[in-house]
């Protein structure tokens, strides 16, 4: 990437004023009234235009450029397009050509753009606690290299997370060749070690599983969050929704069973769901395996103790046998390697392998057990055998198992180097900290869940002089090639077939996907059925701990991201905290209520204690406590420090293996939790409408036919007339998985500020599209309540209550049906918000947008006004995207075609639950969606005539489990 000279934004206010004091400090020193008096009478500042010295070829200033790259999370790639406005990356879109994206992304990819611009990122080299430079480090490294060359790197250890990058794998292999006594260790706190062990048990070699949910009529998820936690989750959600639409009257083309510990996105979406503690789940699945005739599984195993377990065993076995080759079982999370190996054997028995499941060679470069790897490393460090430790983008001081004493051992390593995006807990303990360039600032490569490789290309030069892992490893081995670009090209010149490397390289960059790089199916040969886990596998602990990834911070790597911290967690709608999740009966028996602060001790190690608030979730298994990781950071940055409780304190090696028994003591204290939705009942109203497939077949119009659901025919207001376009949106509740990607995509697209915990407590969060969760029961069926999600943006009502009460005409109807908010007219009466029955309007009570920090200005979308204090705002249907598409069409002298306007929430949605388009076009997708008998309007009885409508939900539960 060429050197970029400047970010062409300038502001005369930056100029230094007289008397040696700059204007900004001056204003801060002055009293508010004086500041108003001095600044208020002046006009707007004289702006400057800063053109290029040499403009890049094909550049059109004012139009965004998109770079195909990849967002790499926990080692795995999700193809993205980085939108860049005059050199500033401002938004991430999914890459439609990438198999893990198909145009959609998850919440982390959306929020990664804020991480790029985070002013708390590491900006300098540190030697211990003192500032240093890359040059000084290189000099120090020179001496180390001489030692390594002499002793073959006997005291050298490399520590990385999960690596799929072919370039980094090649580089580290070369390093181990050059220094044969060096070792490469891996540590990723969320690495799925059990999957690796299971593959060894089942196939005798490492392997990974790729699911084809579009081909499965029956899906059984055994504590596996298919839609939330896997490298392929975005694609899996897409395939699941596609299959769902393809049969069963267009709404129920498959059936999903979930047996899980805590509520997950997959469990919420499931047609039949059962919550059990991990040991009980294992018992259940072994009995099912026996029933379907998995070779080597004795029929005499004890079943689960749960009252429903025999019904479930029978139902699951029946469903699997009826759909051989068309079913799919997947186990994850807390399941033991033996049980996960059993699931491989069950899929093979059912003939699913090669149809709904492909077994491939591991995508990660070193398919090893990470807990074992870090344990061995810590032991060597404690024994003084490690002289040099290079840590590439990992934070073991924070997230290594608690009983390893990693921080203390690190102090005994003379030459410890930490390369990281932040000077985090590890960066502060290491002898050297080096700033890592962000993935959107450097060259790299990575592979997706199915093996597909992508080149990671930069969209901006490093903001803070960071370097990539490739560039550091090149220094370690004194490689002749030093630049990231050359290193990545060298790898692919080696791997790429065909004589014309330049064409290959250009295509790979343009498409964001390397052609034909998907992993081939692995020949698995004969399968071994493992021996069943002993009934005492998990002792009957009064309270077992399960450590789970957090839907907002991951395992802590996104703790300093305010968008994610303020993103309501799917089931609790909690922001800015983590909580210990427990079931209702467990809570009752211990006299706990949501918000109670408890002290948790490990049975085995009473000195490991943690104070954390509990949250009672009725859909949670009893006797188990789920502890989200990623909080209680001490060196995350100004946003993430001190938020929540550090559950790693209890995560010992044994706990990371799934064996942790806890003691729980009430502290008698309360913790204030900031949530965005206070209760989950619909108070007898039909906010989310749902029926089972049988009920739907009986009455396809169930969503709208009862008298109280009917839309009044007449209105006092005159009808509007729409000559050209008439915009509308349809949201399919059958497709929505509640993942929140729409909320955060909207935040990135529309410059929506975060407000902080205090303001969320006052109900002042600013999200333009929220995802509500309700606990509902089917009419006359089933005992278990299920979670349903409902995204709620502005409804753009035809007879909008907000428009009638604005005294200054700041919210008005436009000629295409949009209910527009005119910021420059708004005087902040908040009448509109009070009159909105959907509560989608958001008011800037304070100056929430950060106009002080330069890098936060840079992340803003230049096509959307940044709102000031005292102004109301809300969903605009992405007016800027409509305008952009309309102008391009108008210039060509034609009208807009269906599908040309894509809103940010629609673009990011993996299941295509959101459809937007022209209601005046009879063939538009949105009109087809609204023609469904399932289509209904929220609170239609108020006669607001919303343009955003919903497709009622149809579930397909197993009749035997109702």
């Amino acid at each position, binding site marked *: 990437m060429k050197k970029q000279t400047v970010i062409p934004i300038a502001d005369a206010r930056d100029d230094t004023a007289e008397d040696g004091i700059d204007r900004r400090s001056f204003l801060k020193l002055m009293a508010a009234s004086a500041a108003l008096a001095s600044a208020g009478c002046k006009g*707007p500042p004289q702006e*400057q*235009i800063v053109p290029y010295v040499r403009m890049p070829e094909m550049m059109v200033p004012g139009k965004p450029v998109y770079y195909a790259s990849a967002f790499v999370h926990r080692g795995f790639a999700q193809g993205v397009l980085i939108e860049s406005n005059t050199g500033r990356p401002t938004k991430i879109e999914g890459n439609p050509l990438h198999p893990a994206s198909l145009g959609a992304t998850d919440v982390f990819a959306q929020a990664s753009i804020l991480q790029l611009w985070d002013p708390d990122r590491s900006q300098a080299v540190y030697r211990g606690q003192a500032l240093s430079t890359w040059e000084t480090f290189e000099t120090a490294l020179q001496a180390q290299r001489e030692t390594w060359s002499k002793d073959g790197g006997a005291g050298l250890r490399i520590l990385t997370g999960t690596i799929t990058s072919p370039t980094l794998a090649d580089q580290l292999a070369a390093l181990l060749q050059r220094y044969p006594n060096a070792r490469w260790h891996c540590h990723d706190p969320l690495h799925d070690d059990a999957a690796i062990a299971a593959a060894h048990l089942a196939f005798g070699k490492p392997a990974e599983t790729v699911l084809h949910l579009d081909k499965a009529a029956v899906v059984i998820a055994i504590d596996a969050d298919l839609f939330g936690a896997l490298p392929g989750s975005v694609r899996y959600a897409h395939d699941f929704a596609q299959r769902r639409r393809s049969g069963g009257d267009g709404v129920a083309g498959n059936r999903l069973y979930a047996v899980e510990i805590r509520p997950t996105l997959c469990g919420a979406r499931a047609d039949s769901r059962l919550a059990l503690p991990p040991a009980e789940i294992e018992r259940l699945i072994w009995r099912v395996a026996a029933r379907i005739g998995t070779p080597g599984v004795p029929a005499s195993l004890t079943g689960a103790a749960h009252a429903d377990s025999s019904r479930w065993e029978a139902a699951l076995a029946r469903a699997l046998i009826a759909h051989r080759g068309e079913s799919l079982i997947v186990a994850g999370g807390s399941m033991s390697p033996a049980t996960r190996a059993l699931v491989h054997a069950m899929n093979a028995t059912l003939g699913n392998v090669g149809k709904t499941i492909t077994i491939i060679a591991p995508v990660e470069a070193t398919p090893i057990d990470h807990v074992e790897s870090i344990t061995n490393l810590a032991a060597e460090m404690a024994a003084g055998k490690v002289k040099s430790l290079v840590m590439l983008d990992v934070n073991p001081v924070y997230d290594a198992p608690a009983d390893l004493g990693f921080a203390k051992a690190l102090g005994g390593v003379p030459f410890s180097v930490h390369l990281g995006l932040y000077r985090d807990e590890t960066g502060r303990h290491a002898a050297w900290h080096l700033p890592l360039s962000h993935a959107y600032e450097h060259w790299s490569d990575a592979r997706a869940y199915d093996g597909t490789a992508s080149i990671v290309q930069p969209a901006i030069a490093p903001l803070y002089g960071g370097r990539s892992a490739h560039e550091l490893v090149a220094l370690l081995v004194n490689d002749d090639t030093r630049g990231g670009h050359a290193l990545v090209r060298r790898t692919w010149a080696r791997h790429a077939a065909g004589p014309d490397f330049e064409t290959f390289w250009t295509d790979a960059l343009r498409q964001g996907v390397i052609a034909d790089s998907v992993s081939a199916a692995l020949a698995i040969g004969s399968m071994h059925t493992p021996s069943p886990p002993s009934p005492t596998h998990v002792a009957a602990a009064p309270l077992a701990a399960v450590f789970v990834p957090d839907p907002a911070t991951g395992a802590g790597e996104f703790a300093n991201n305010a968008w994610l911290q303020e993103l309501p967690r799917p089931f609790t709608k909690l922001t800015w905290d983590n909580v210990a999740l427990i079931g209702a009966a467990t809570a009752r028996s211990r006299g706990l209520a949501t918000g109670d602060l408890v002290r948790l001790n490990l049975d085995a190690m009473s000195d490991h204690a943690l104070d954390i608030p509990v949250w009672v979730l009725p859909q949670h298994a009893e006797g188990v406590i789920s502890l989200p990781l990623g909080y209680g950071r001490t060196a995350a940055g100004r946003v993430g420090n001190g938020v929540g409780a550090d559950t790693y304190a209890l995560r010992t090696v044994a706990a990371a293996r799934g064996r942790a028994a806890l003691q729980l003591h009430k502290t008698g204290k309360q913790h204030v939790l900031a949530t965005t939705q206070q209760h989950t009942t619909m108070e007898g109203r039909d906010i989310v409408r749902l029926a089972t497939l049988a009920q739907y077949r009986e009455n396809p119009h169930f969503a709208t036919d009862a008298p109280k659901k009917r839309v009044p025919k007449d209105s006092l207001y005159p009808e509007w007339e729409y000559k050209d376009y008439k915009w509308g949106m349809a949201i399919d509740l059958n497709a929505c998985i509640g993942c929140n990607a729409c909320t955060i995509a909207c935040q990135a697209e529309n410059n929506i500020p975060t407000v902080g915990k205090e303001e969320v407590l006052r109900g002042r969060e600013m999200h333009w599209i929220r995802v509500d969760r309700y606990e509902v029961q089917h009419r006359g069926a089933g005992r278990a309540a299920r979670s349903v999600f409902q995204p709620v943006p502005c409804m753009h009502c035809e007879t909008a209550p907000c428009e009638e009460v604005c005294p200054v005409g700041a919210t008005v109807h436009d000629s295409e049906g949009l209910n527009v908010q005119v910021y420059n007219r708004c005087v902040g009466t908040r009448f509109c918000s009070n009159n909105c029955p959907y509560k989608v309007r958001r008011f800037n009570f304070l100056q929430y947008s950060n106009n002080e920090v330069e890098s936060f200005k840079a992340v803003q979308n230049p096509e959307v006004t940044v709102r000031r204090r005292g102004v109301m705002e809300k969903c605009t249907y992405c007016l800027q995207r409509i305008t952009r598409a309309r*102008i391009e069409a*108008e210039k060509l002298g034609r009208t807009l075609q269906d599908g040309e306007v894509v809103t940010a929430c629609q673009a990011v949605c993996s299941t295509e639950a959101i459809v937007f388009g022209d209601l005046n076009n009879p063939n538009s997708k949105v009109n087809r969606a609204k023609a469904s008998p399932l289509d209904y309007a929220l609170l239609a009885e108020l006669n607001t005539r919303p343009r955003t409508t919903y497709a009622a939900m149809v579930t397909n539960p197993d009749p035997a489990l109702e």
Partner: protein
Amino acid sequence: MAPAYAAQEPVSQPIRFSHKHHVGDDGLDCRYCHTSVEKSSFAGMPSTQICLTCHSQLFRDSPELAPLHASMRTDTPIRWNRVYDLPDFVYFDHSIHVNKGVACMECHGRVDQMPLMLRKEALDMQWCLGCHRIAPQHVRPLAQVFRMQDQRPLSDQELGQLNRLYHLQDTRRLTDCSTCHR
């Protein structure tokens, strides 16, 4: 709140660039320097390289052009003072205007007669609406959009033909808040 420079008042610039000389005397087309005016919301300001296509030869040693050469030598952009500055909540798009036959002159005036660039209009909303309310009367054939000379008024018949050609949006649409504010 008055802007830094009033309308009709020349704005000081790092180089005393004369539109009168370049447009009026030399007859350069607007698009030679403002390259993106037909494609983008932003008309585009010439890069140092564009200036140097001529000035690497012409008036090379003029002290007036020293900042230009310094820019290329030091790889530092020239910082021009903005003449036409709309409030940040207004989204104006050059490309749609010139593609629908609104001549540069409509807003920028006879720049071919301006030795130093100045803002011809006050740029208040009333002024924008003055045209948006009767847009069909403010269009020109595409061939005349970048012309500077005063042109004869078009007949009703000619305007009617142009409007059919351009498919102008109706007055309601063109005066909607959402047309310019978002």
